[in-house]
């Protein structure tokens, strides 16, 4: 079941508050050492409203999806068969701490393909981040692969 019918489904928007501590924590986890991520004074002196988010910080918004509002947009994935396929970010300006962004995710594509690891379902989600002025500083896309069979099953391995 490829769930092609899910294409175009859109989540209920939710608010993503960009917080200084979370930006610093994320920057540390991805070894982003630029002082603009870590020091508020440096960011303010450079003309920003707060510390500047690293380029892939937007992914952390997904932990604030209100429970029950998205639920994978009708696509249930078995984590033991899931692999991350890829991601893409389009920027028109940096995001900074203190912002409140409205986040909406839609299913952009669902396909069933056959590759090196056998049959797989490929799901592309597109997330728009809209600021208080109605502008969209960031669009993010992520591709998730759900293998038809986990690697162990393919090898005939009995893991109960």
């Amino acid at each position: 079941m490829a769930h092609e019918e899910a294409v175009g489904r859109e989540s209920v928007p939710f608010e993503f508050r960009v917080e200084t501590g979370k930006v610093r924590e994320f920057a540390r986890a991805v070894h982003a050492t630029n002082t603009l991520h870590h020091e508020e004074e440096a960011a303010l002196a450079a003309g920003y409203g707060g510390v500047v988010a690293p380029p892939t910080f937007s992914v952390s918004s997904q932990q604030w999806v209100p429970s029950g509002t998205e639920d994978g947009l009708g696509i249930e994935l078995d984590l033991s068969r899931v692999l991350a396929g890829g991601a893409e970010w389009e920027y028109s300006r940096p995001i900074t701490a203190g912002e409140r962004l409205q986040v909406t995710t839609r299913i952009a594509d669902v396909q069933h393909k056959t590759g090196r690891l056998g049959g797989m379902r490929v799901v592309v989600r597109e997330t728009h981040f809209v600021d208080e002025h109605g502008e969209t500083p960031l669009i993010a896309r992520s591709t998730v692969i759900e293998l038809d069979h986990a690697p162990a099953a393919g090898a005939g391995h009995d893991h109960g």
Partner: protein
Amino acid sequence: MTTVERQVRRVGNETHSRSFGKVSRTDFVRYAGAGGDFNPMHHDDDFARAAGYPTVFGHGLLTAGLLSSFVADWLGLLHLRRLKVRYVDQVWPGSELVATGRVREFLEVAGEARLVADLTVADRAGSEERIVLRGEVEALRKVGVDGG
């Protein structure tokens, strides 16, 4: 048109890279907390083995995040316009990651002088280098970057 010739000649000649050293389970867990991705595949060895993997492996987005830190330092944090990554292999505990970029072309978009660079992240822990991620970035051209 000397300038143009110089630019064309220099595109793709120069590679830039950053080594992130060995990554550990602690790095995976720190990223899980920071990014909010608690898929047990990245911290629970029992779960990973039951799914057929030898151990846990790193989040693709951790590798992408490390790459983006290198790219931002190289091309300018505020100059990035588009970043695209494709995960091609797993990052295991003990992988030694090196991010590399090479400018592919210069172009003009929406009145902005931009560049496009090809990106890779490789694991150099084994006897042979193993590519774990391929990507590309589009950014404003910063004076001094590959003849810009």
